[in-house]
């Protein structure tokens, strides 16, 4: 299987990458780990005329603690997210999710920025960044802007990222006292993509849920927040009965995907099961 022909450039700096991007009028694509883009090109779903290899921009491959945020460089591989001491300490749910992506070889190459930019409806990170209230930092020659995860995912394989922009960082608020987060995934056994994955973050005070964020991936054309569930949890103790009641009817099968991995009705059922597991674990960690 081969791709259409294209040209290739290895960027030595963010500036150079952005200049090349801007000079190709939407026909160029950034190449990081290539583990979403190259398969898409082989299937001829996309046919850029220029690939700009940004994988050598090491400044964007670091995880740092920046005030109350984890700042994760866009080129941080899944393996590096999985093993980062900072991520494991301040946001273990994200490290656990990264450890469940694909397989070891894929995690050695794929990057968080590349995965977010690709916005596969079954990718894991979209649920995490939504539940964790992350911000996506994007840079172009016009400057840098930040978009909340809530505003980032537009549709299947479509995000707020413009053709001339690159994701440079993901900023995630570190978990505070009384906060816990978890991710529960029903994985396709071959690909490890999420048939349904649910990430949950809860804040507890005096045994009561102050706020919850619940986000679902794999089920629908794009990852989404289950805001009705979040509202039903607020102000209540996170008992099994409260969680069971809150997740009931989380998703409408009419709005979900149906494919070989599962029908829409099955996915709707999985949404409730995975949300229950994620909330139960998040609440246990917050306590």
């Amino acid at each position, binding site marked *: 299987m081969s791709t259409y022909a294209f*040209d*290739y450039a290895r960027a030595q700096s963010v500036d150079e990458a952005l200049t090349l991007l801007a000079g190709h009028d939407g026909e160029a694509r950034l190449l990081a780990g290539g583990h979403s883009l*190259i398969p898409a090109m082989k299937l001829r779903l996309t046919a850029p005329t220029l*690939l700009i*290899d940004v994988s050598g921009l090491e400044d964007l491959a670091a995880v740092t603690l920046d005030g109350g945020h984890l700042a994760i460089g866009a080129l941080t591989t899944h393996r590096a997210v999985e093993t980062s001491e900072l991520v494991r300490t301040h946001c273990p749910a994200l490290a656990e999710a990264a450890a469940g992506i694909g*397989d*070891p070889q*894929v995690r050695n190459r794929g990057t968080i920025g590349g995965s977010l930019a690709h916005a596969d409806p079954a990718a894991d990170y979209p649920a995490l960044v939504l539940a964790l209230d992350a911000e996506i930092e994007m840079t172009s020659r016009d400057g840098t802007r930040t978009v909340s995860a809530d505003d980032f995912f537009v549709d299947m394989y479509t995000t707020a990222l413009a053709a001339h922009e690159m994701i440079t960082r993901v900023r995630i608020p570190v978990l505070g006292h009384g906060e816990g987060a978890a991710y529960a995934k029903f994985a396709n056994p071959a690909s490890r993509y999420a048939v349904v994955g649910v990430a949950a973050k809860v804040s507890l005070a005096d045994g009561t849920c102050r706020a919850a964020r619940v986000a679902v991936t794999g089920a629908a054309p794009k990852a989404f927040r289950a805001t009705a569930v979040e509202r039903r949890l607020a102000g209540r103790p996170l008992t099994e009965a409260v969680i069971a009641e809150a997740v009931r009817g989380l998703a409408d099968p009419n709005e979900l995907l149906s494919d070989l991995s599962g029908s829409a009705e099955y996915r709707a059922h999985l949404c409730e099961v995975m949300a229950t597991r994620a909330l139960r674990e998040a609440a246990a960690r917050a306590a």
Partner: protein
Amino acid sequence: MTRDITVTINGEQHTVAVEPRLLLVHLIREKLNLTGTHIGCDTSSCGACTVLINGKSAKSCTILAVQADGASITTIEGVGTPEALHPLQEGFRECHGLHCGFCTPGMIMRAMELLEKNPNPTEEEIRWGIAGNLCRCTGYNNIVKAIQYAAAKLRGEETPSTEPEFV
């Protein structure tokens, strides 16, 4: 339009003119004639094409040759010799870790990194460690045993029983 890239494969430097769309596995197999690296699925699912790039296991069907410009690559041909097998190769032989052998080069290249990072893995860690490598013959039990055999040998310990497991 081709461009020159330089890669070090199994310690030997090669400068090759390649099209940007040439996959690394095609460079290895067709331009350098190192056919030990196999193409199974061509979709980064099966792991038959696994090689080490700067010491990290990677699926060479999902990497462009140009991305590997400047890299150091190890393929199965760079592991052991017929006279002095690597402990992993010996383990696969002793434990019957293969039937048809198609997945074996990828399995061994993946296990190389696994044992490098974790010299004493549990059975579960081995199974998750080779989750990106498919074998359609063995049922994996003897592959796991082969990796355990190699791990013990690399640690300088007595190797476990090589009695094959039939299930």
